[in-house]
Structure formats: C-alpha cells, structure tokens
C-alpha cells in the first residue's frame, strides 16, 4: 500500500473537495483519497499493483484540476 500526497493548487472550496474525492476514491485499487482544502493537497492511499499514480493523476485532471508534479 503506497500513500502519496499530490499538490493541486486550484483547490479552493468544498465543492472541489467533493469532486476530487468522488473521482479518485472509486478507482479500483485506491483505498482512500482525502483532500485538505487549506493545504490544497490530496492524500491518496493505493495498491501499486492494481492502479498506478498516472491513472490517479489522470482522474484528477479529468475533473479539470491540474496536478503539480
């Protein structure tokens, strides 16, 4: 199980939190996804053999948020 913290500078409101968590958490292999609004970060815990970081970043990107690498 790997845990990664991604920086997403465009996060600004509760709305954004719901959208991002709603897009990442359901992915197969993702155990949890949590957005911290103040820090503009997303903490994701996932199983590396089932899903890779790129897929997670793509999910966030598809919602319209740019992930700072």
């Amino acid at each position: 199980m790997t845990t990664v913290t991604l920086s997403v500078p465009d996060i600004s409101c509760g709305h954004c939190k719901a959208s991002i968590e709603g897009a990442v958490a359901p992915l197969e292999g993702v155990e949890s996804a949590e957005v911290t609004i103040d820090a503009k970060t997303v903490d994701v815990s996932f199983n590396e053999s089932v899903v890779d970081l790129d897929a997670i970043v793509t999910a966030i990107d598809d919602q319209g948020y740019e992930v700072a690498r």
Partner: protein
Amino acid sequence: MSDTIRFDVEGMTCASCAVRIERVLGKQDGVETAVVNFAGQEARATVTDSADIEALQAAVAKIGYDIEEIDPDNDNRSITERYDAEARYQLRNVVGAGILTAVVMVLAMIGPDTDWNPWVQFVLTTIVVFGFGWQFHRAAWKQITSLSPAMDTLISVGTLAAWGYSTFVLLSGSGEGFIFFESAAMIVTLILLGRFFEARAKGEATNAIAKLAELGAKQARVVRQGTEVMVDPLELAPGDVVVVLPGEKIPADGIVHSGRSGVDESMLTGESRPVTKEPGSSAFGATVNQLGRLEIEVEHVGPNSALNQIVRLVEDAQATKAPVQRLADQISGVFVPVVIGIALIVLIGWMAAEGDAAIAVRNAVSVLIIACPCALGLATPTAIMVGSGRGASLGVLFKNAEVFERSRDLDTVIFDKTGTLTRGAMTLAAVHAEGDEDDLLRRVAAIESGSEHPIARAVVLGAEERDLTFATATDVTAIEGRGVIGTLDGNTVVIGASALFTDRGWRVSPSVAEAFDEIASQGNTTFLVGWDGATRGVISVADTIRETSREAIEQLHHDGLTTGMLTGDSHFVAAAIAAEVGVDTVVSEVMPAEKAEAISQMQVEGSVVAFVGDGINDAPALTVADVGMAVGSGTEVAIEAGDIVLMSGDPMASVTAVRLARRTFATIRQNLFWAFAYNTAAIPLAALGFLNPMIAAAAMALSSVSVVTNSLRLRRFDA
C-alpha cells in the same frame, strides 16, 4: 475556419470552477480555446467544424456543471433577464408554499380537533418541505458531503427534524401528540420568501464588457489603391492608412501619417484637454478627432488595441473577484456543528439519566427543531431591501447585495480626479488685468467666442457668468500650441504664450509677467493677454474642484477612512489639487491600467478599498476595488462597472454611500442576532423536554417580527 460559440454556464460557485470548465473544454476535440467568465456565468469557446456541441455539454456535465448554447440572435438577453427569471421562479415557490403553509397554520392553531386534521397537515407539509423546499436539501447535501455546512444545511436539518418527528408522532401515536408540521412549513416558506427578495434585489451584474465593446468606431475610411473605401474597423490590417475627418472616431490604434489635429482622449485617459496629434504621434482607437483631418497608419486592431486592453482588465478583474462569504452562511457554518453537538449531548444525557430511548430521542430532536431559526432567511434580504430603498431616495443606488458585506471592513476611499473631485470641464480660474478686469475678459471672450476648444468655451462661459456682453472678433487665427490672435474693433488682440508677444515686438510688462508666474505656479493653464503693443493681463483656466470635494474628504476622515486620489494628470497639477482637497495619498500620471494596479497594490497591502470614478478608463479600477462607486453623471460603462451608483455628481454622495452601506451591514448583523436569539434561548427548554408547538410558534413569530422591525429602522437613516 473557426467559430466562436457562447454558452450559459450553470452551477459555478467560485472562480476556480470557471478554471476547471476552461480546462475540460479546452481538452475536447475541435476546441481551440475556451474562456470562462465566472461573474458573467458564461463560457466562450472558439471551435473548428469538428466540434460536437453535445459532446462538450457531456464533458462539462461530467464534472458537475451545465452549459447551454446561447443563440446568437438572442444574446442581447442581459444578466438582468436571467435574474428576473430566478426571481419569478422563487416567487412561484413562495406563493405555492405560502398557500399550503397558511392552511397548515390554520389547521394547527385553530383548526377543528378531528382525526383528519393532523393527516391533512402531514400531507400539505410534506409537499412544502420536499417539493418547494427541495432546493435546500439538495444544497445541504452538497454542503455536508464537502464538510462545509452553511445556511442550507441548517434549514434542511431543522425542517427534516420537525417533519420527521411529527410524522413519527402521528404514525405511532406517542409523544403527547405534539406535532410540529406548521414549524417545518413556516421555516420553508419564510426562507423561500427571503430567497425571493434576494433574487429580486439582485441588480444588474456587470454588463460593462458589452458596453465597452460598443464603443469602437463603427466604420473606417481606408485608402486602398488610391481610393477611399469604407470598411468595418475589424477588417483593418496593420499598415493600412485610414483617413479620419473632423468629428469622427479614430477606428484603430496607430501612428499619425499626416495631418494635424486635437484629439479628445478623455475616454481613455480621463483628461478633458485635447491632445495635439501630428505626424509621428500615436493615436488610439475610439478616441474622437476634433478639428483637423488626420491620416493614420494602423498598428493595432482588435485584441491588441488600447480599448481592448481596458476590456481585458475588466474581464480579469471580474474573474478574480472572490465572492464574499455571506455572514449568514458563516454563522450557520459554526452553528450547525454546535447544535448537532448539543443534540447528541442531550441524547446521551437523557439515555444516561432515564434510560428511555423514546424520551432521549424526542428531546434531542426537539433541540434540532427549535434551533433552526426561520427568520434566518429574512435577516439579510430585508435589511438589504430597506437599505437599498433608503439609498435610492438619497440618490445612492446599490447594484448588488454583496456590496454591503464588502463594506464592513472598508478602510480606504480613493477618488479619480477628473470628473469626480473636479468638475471635469475647464472653467475660468483667474483673471488678472493691469486695467479693468471686465474689459480684459470681454476682449478675450470676443476672440474665443467662435471656438469650440474647451479652453475657449471655459473663458466664454466665465464671461457670461459675470454678465458681460462681448462682441465677436474677426480674423481669429489659432496658432497651434502657442495661442490665438484676432481683431476686435480694429485692434489686434493676442492671447497666449510670451513668444507670441516678443515675436511681434510687443512689450511684456514685468508686473504682468510676475502675475503670470504666480498664477501658473498654481498648476493652471495660463495665458498672457495683450493689445496695443503690450501685455495687458493674464487669464487662466483650470479644471475646478467641486465645492463639496473638500468637505467630503473631511467627512471620510471623520469616519476613520484613509483617502486618496488617482489621476492621469501631471505630478504638478495633481499635487496642487490634492493639497486643496486634503487627501492622504496621491498617485499621478497613471494610465488606466495602472489605476487598477494601484488599487490592487493597496489591497495586497491589506486595505479594503473603495474607488470612486466616472469614466470609461475607470472601469478596470472600479471592478478591481472592493467597492466600486460610479458617479452617475459619468459614462455608461463606469455605471455598469460599479457596485454603487452615486446619482448626483456630488462627492458628498460617497460619504452617504459608505455610511449607509455600513449601517445596513450592521442591521444585517443585528437581524442575525435576533433571528437566532429566541430560538437559541429555547434550546434549553427543548433539551429538558419542555418543547411544544406553542413555544416553537412563539419563537418563530417573535424572531420574524424582530427582524422585520429592525430592518425597517433603516428607513430613518440620514447621513
């Protein structure tokens, strides 16, 4: 071949939502660029033929927003009409809910004590809470799942608690038959009423951009292959030579090729004095050519022109303006967790004390029921309505509701100079004569009477105001940049710079020269006047300060506000006026873009800034400022860009506006207190199991009455 499509966007709650939509649209097939404007609730995309509108809509829907294509023929529909539609929607809700609620109230309070009575209440209330009140639950769900509770959460929890508990009591026959259907229905109705008031009071959102777009010249006279052809200004290309006749608008930015004329650039710079243009000078689109013919080689068309830069600035300012979180939502955000906490404590407390689940649950739910203040929805809208109404009768128009919340922390008021603190037009300032002043003025007026130049008009007006009669001079010749010469009663009269006198061998008397220096040092435009071989006096014109400017600044200081002045004028003139009027800071020689930047800078340093302006060039600054006050006698663009419109040109109106805005906000705060007060006071009663529908109704009635009465007090506001 690319097309631009415009969409209405629904569901955006903040400016970053706009960024998301932009990004998603930009990634779709066939979309070249996408720009989303949060304030205008609009998206614009340039697309190639392969773009599929439905695919775009689906893509945006996937991230939670709706877009509808705007029919180009219909797109004159302004934001006002959209808000009207919302107001009508809310009104239908209020009326529907209101009628049903009235029936429920009657049944509950004085209705017949029959078996079907509570069941009818149940049915009607269910319709009200879940039908008309659905918008609250939907919004509350979004708020809860993102852990940011606001007013909707409070309302939803309160009404569902009241409805749920009452339904349970009705079905199970327990709980002493206390049902609270009328509470639930009343809450929904009153909040809907508040929403209706708000929707109705929503002023026109900024339509400044549309107005700005209309300002350009409609036609351009281009020289193509030797002949003059009329074309649309947007079809000009860099390198084209356009001919601009006297009185026409310059169609694009460029360099003067030939010709010489004065150009009125006031709409870009705000300064009323015409700027001389000669070969090599830069000229700007949408400015007005005055008396000469100009041939201009085009440099910038469309997006890069000076006018479009102003549009861009306003758009950027609109997009980045953060919506103010309403005080009501802030308070609800704190209140909801506290109330739920109390309910839990009550639940646990009673379980521990009595071990009876039914009582524990009943009391916990009672807390939730009584905690929801139904006057909450009225607190802000009623204050705003009365405040706006009072403002209108005092000549201050509040265009949107946010301005009251923004005014709470206001600490600085900045004025544009020309047209706001000053009259904006040249007026006669000083007249100094060796001999008779009136005689001097008569001669000058006679020479200037034929000219349309602002300086000439100022002099003529000044003479007329002193009830002087004057003839019309003959052989009047203007010497560009130097002055004017004419013949009056056979005598030659010279008005202008000293070179005009020395050149023809006339004497410049030392006393007149001294007077000239003194008057010129005050920052005014000064001329020597002479006839019969020598100088005879001095005349000067200036952009005069309005009578009440000084006092307005004093009053603002009195209220604890810092004041300042922004102008495109020279440091010299600006300093003179600033000293006269008494402002704390002066920023001079600023271009329109820099005005907005100057305001931003102050905001970055922590100030909450109000800006008072009147011209097109003030639009960006008006939009960037926390509170933009447009002077009503100014341009339409400024009026659209401002949050407040000061109907008279009087600077004192800004004092009234600030005081009324602050007082209205204070009223909102007081209303919120009253809305919560009675209900919160009743929480202990509910916790201890004493809540009954009578108490709930009493709290509702008292809080509503208090809020409305308190708002009405605003009617008596006087600056």
